[in-house]
């Protein structure tokens, strides 16, 4: 574009606010409030006051129509240079990772020098709207001239039209909730309940240890008086998990429970990316580099597992990068559901699946589980859809920065049967 070779894209670091279960401590906050807090935390951490950033890109999944310009509005509420553009976009749970990928591409081709990927979500402040029929009636009413037209617009009105429509998290094409889809995957890949529960316990314990050792201290900034994720249970009791009822499939076939699925969560995250020159000029040391990225989708409408697309994204990305699945020091596999993670791992080991879906003669194989989600993941800290990618990027960059070498793999599944994957490398 501007000529010259592609540049390396540095991940300077991520900052997020603590994540809270829906309708708890952030019950009074909006997406704009939370996103502004996360960005302000990043600004303070990396001394970005008055900095003109190339772009701030991100968004929210559950969002009000008034937040159509969320990213830019959030920028205006921070101490960044007010001329910093804000681009609002979304790709369900992949939003902030996809935002980082877009920014990285622009940095690589020298279009911009720096960018902030961000995301926020709240289900405590849901956009509740009228049904289509009543909305159309209101529009007609507004356009109507004179009483007869106005009466005409109200013709056939029934009180039932006034029933508000809360946002629906079900897949529009299948009518099934995300959890129901994941339950189907658990059945298909034969993921037993006890394995799912064990993963949840592990996630909580690792995240709690990360807090205790201070790992989270510079990644998480307090917001509204909250300092830590309130879904996190340091003293999680595996015995108690066994007693929980299944939530999506109530028969004895069911395996997904409230503990091995992520709860509805409020929160926001942000990540600073930059060219090496820009980072150097501001005295910032990159923690890691965003080396590869891939987005894929799966044909769930025809019956594939809804949340299996990351298997494809990772496979294609590895081919492009010339790497094996085993060539990583860290794996950040977003835990939308324990069953999603376990099904993904199992699929990569399954020759039939790899042949049929990934077009591979040999399976990708197993990973070293001790390298996966070493600081816990969404099952423990929660999953505010659009904020999760930013959280994962921040954690993995810090891990690589501390290690000083090696690489890490990110895999995130999203609604609509999509998967987003990326590779970070240490400097």
């Amino acid at each position, binding site marked *: 574009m501007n000529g010259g070779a592609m540049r390396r894209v540095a991940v300077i670091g991520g900052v997020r606010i603590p994540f809270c279960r829906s309708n708890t*401590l952030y*019950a*009074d906050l909006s997406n704009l409030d939370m996103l502004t807090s996360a960005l302000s935390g990043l600004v303070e951490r990396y001394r970005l006051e008055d900095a003109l950033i190339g772009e701030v890109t991100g968004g929210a999944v559950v969002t009000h129509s008034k937040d159509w310009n969320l990213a830019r509005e959030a920028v205006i509420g921070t101490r960044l240079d007010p001329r910093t553009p804000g681009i609002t976009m979304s790709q369900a749970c992949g939003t902030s990772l996809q935002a980082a990928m877009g920014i990285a591409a622009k940095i690589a081709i020298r279009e911009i020098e720096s960018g902030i990927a961000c995301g926020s979500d709240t289900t405590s402040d849901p956009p509740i709207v009228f049904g289509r029929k009543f909305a159309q009636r209101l529009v007609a009413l507004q356009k109507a001239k004179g009483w007869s037209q106005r009466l005409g617009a109200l013709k056939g009105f029934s009180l039932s039209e006034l029933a508000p429509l809360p946002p629906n998290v079900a897949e529009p094409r299948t009518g099934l909730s995300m959890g129901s889809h994941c339950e189907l995957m658990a059945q298909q890949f034969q993921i037993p309940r006890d394995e799912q529960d064990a993963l949840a316990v592990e996630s909580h314990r690792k995240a709690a240890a990360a807090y205790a050792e201070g790992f989270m*201290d510079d990644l998480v900034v307090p917001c*509204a008086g*909250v*300092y830590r994720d309130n879904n996190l249970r340091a003293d999680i009791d595996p015995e108690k998990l066994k007693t929980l009822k299944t939530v999506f499939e109530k028969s004895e076939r069911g395996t997904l429970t409230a503990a091995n699925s992520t709860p509805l969560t409020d929160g926001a995250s942000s990540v600073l990316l930059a060219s090496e020159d820009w980072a150097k000029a501001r005295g910032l040391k990159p923690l890691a580099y965003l080396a590869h990225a891939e987005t894929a989708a799966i044909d769930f409408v025809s019956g594939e597992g809804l949340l299996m697309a990351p298997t494809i994204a990772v496979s294609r990305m590895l081919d492009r990068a010339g790497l094996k699945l085993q060539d990583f020091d860290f794996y950040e596999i977003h835990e939308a559901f324990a069953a999603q993670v376990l099904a993904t791992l199992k699929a990569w080991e399954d020759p039939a699946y790899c042949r049929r879906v990934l077009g591979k003669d040999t399976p990708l194989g197993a990973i070293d589980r001790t390298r996966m989600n070493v600081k816990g993941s969404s099952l423990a800290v929660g999953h505010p859809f659009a904020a999760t990618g930013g959280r994962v990027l921040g954690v993995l960059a810090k891990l690589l920065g501390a290690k000083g070498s090696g690489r890490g793999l990110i895999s995130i599944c999203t609604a609509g049967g999509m998967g987003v994957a990326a590779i970070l490398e240490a400097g």
Partner: protein
Amino acid sequence: MTADINALSDWRFEIDFEGLAWATFDRKDETTNTLSRRAMEELWAIVERVQQGAETKEARGLVIISAKETSFIAGADIREFESLDTVARVTEAVEQATAILDCIEKLPIPVVAAIHGYCLGGGLELAMACHYRIATRDEGTRIGLPEIKLGIFPGFNGTMRSIRLAGPVQAMQMMLTGAMLRPSVARAIGLVDELVPARPNLRWAARKAALQGRRSRSPSFGKRVQTLWPIRGFLVRKMRDKAAEKARPEHYPAPFALIELFERHGGSEMRMKAEETRAFAPLMVSETARNLRRVFRLSEAMKDLAPKGLFKPNRVHVIGAGTMGADIAAHCVMSGLEVSLQDLSEDALKRAETQARGHFSKRYKTRAEQEAASARLILDPKGEGVARADVVIEAIVERLEVKRALFKSLEERAKPTAVLATNTSSIPIEDIAKPMRDQGRLIGLHFFNPVPQLPLVEVVKGPDTRESEVEKGCAVVTAIGKFPLVTKSVPGFLVNRVLAPYMMGAMQRLESGVQRETLDEAARVFGMPVGPIELADQVGLDICKHVAEILGLATGDVEGSRLAKLVASGKLGKKSGEGFYVWKDGRPERQAPKEPWKAEELQALGEELVKPLIDECEKCVAERVVAGADMVDAGVIFGTGFAPFRGGPLHYRETKRASA
């Protein structure tokens, strides 16, 4: 007298292409906007220019807004008050200001005040003279008339205008308490007409309001009728009773003068304005007001001890969940910090938590805020919080060996940047630090009981303590909303050292037959918030005895003294239900004096009672226990509640000498 509109220093002025006049207040070389003489003169020039622009139709509206991040206008410039030393000078200055405000009010075009940050005192009075007020919902926006805290009341006709906007009940309450209201409250009582979410919205909301010519809604019938007899008379009686509970008219005349002003003239806006000016000037030049201004300056000086922006604590680890440790922990949580509280006893931790939750439910209104506060208090029996803490505060038993061992181990486990502090009241810092690798690291953070009420924390500096650690200690203290006083590591530090001879002196008089109620009343007549005997009961008699001993004070006939006997029999004061007094529901059971003393006798006794305290203060200055006489006064006022209207013990003695 008026300034040149083309050469303004503290304001920026323009009439834009839409015909809106913008008066942007941005005091030169100051971080906070206050109304100085020059700023008022420039405002006068702006108002005249706008007047002219309105006549020629060049200007359609005026917006008054601030360029500062944290203040609209924080009030009059208190530093200039000292030059207003006669009634005539005060009256002249006030009349000039009220004339400007009247002019603003009478402008024929809409005038909008756009408020973000502090809008206090004269700043609110100016805003109230505008036709419409918009404020941001920002956490830092505060609106109020806190003049009463400086021994005066609003003098730019704010008494009349606040009553007109908010009605007498709300306005008088705000002025009598000096409360600084949140924007939503100010909106609810009518001081503010409109709220916007944040600062970027403010300019545009103000533009719209000015172009549309919005005006405050006229006050409701209900509010107007409250200014009329007989309702006014009823309100006045209630206000007077309430004010008398808090202060004595001979010590703090301003609230009573304000109530009288409303009582006599509240029915007429015109008379209220004129009489406000007349009653204001004598208060302004009174000794009480001068002394309260001094106290205000001292408090600002203490806050300045903390370097800004260098050290911002987020996590506090408190060791010891006794009364003091628990109170410190709860206070830090309520200052927005995350606190891990460590104690060997699970019971003590549970007690501390229950008690803290009680505080939270009173302090926070929403469930989310309460739960967030509860989540910020982490019970930490194993001390895991040490490694992550920015500040570690020790509040365990006063035993040297235990403290030494603790800090030796803390030094290994805490972050290198963390502040290590002891809350000891009787052991020298340097003794505790002795076994530490880095003896320059330890400081004292000496809190006072009850922690929520007493605004002072002594930051104790041992002979080896590094200056940088002391500064960080001061930053911790201001971060939790208290005043830091840097104190040398001498027995009793400053506050206990000067209090002890005062209390022991009173106890000796008690031994010699003076009734405890008489002693306490005499101290209150002098202006102390509590008498010495009651204070001893509140502090705890065991602690009094201990402090007296380490200071080498004779506690009367040591074994036979009433103090010694009470301590021996476990009657330790308020905490055990009985000391010198019997305590019921947190109050001492006072008895009527057998032979009441005359007023002048009580006054004389009061003076004699505080004499040992002031003597000790002089010694502390000589020994440089704190940085100078002003800091002694500040420490004694904020650490003991010593009669603020007297300006501090040393200032009081000096004034008395000068007038003798």
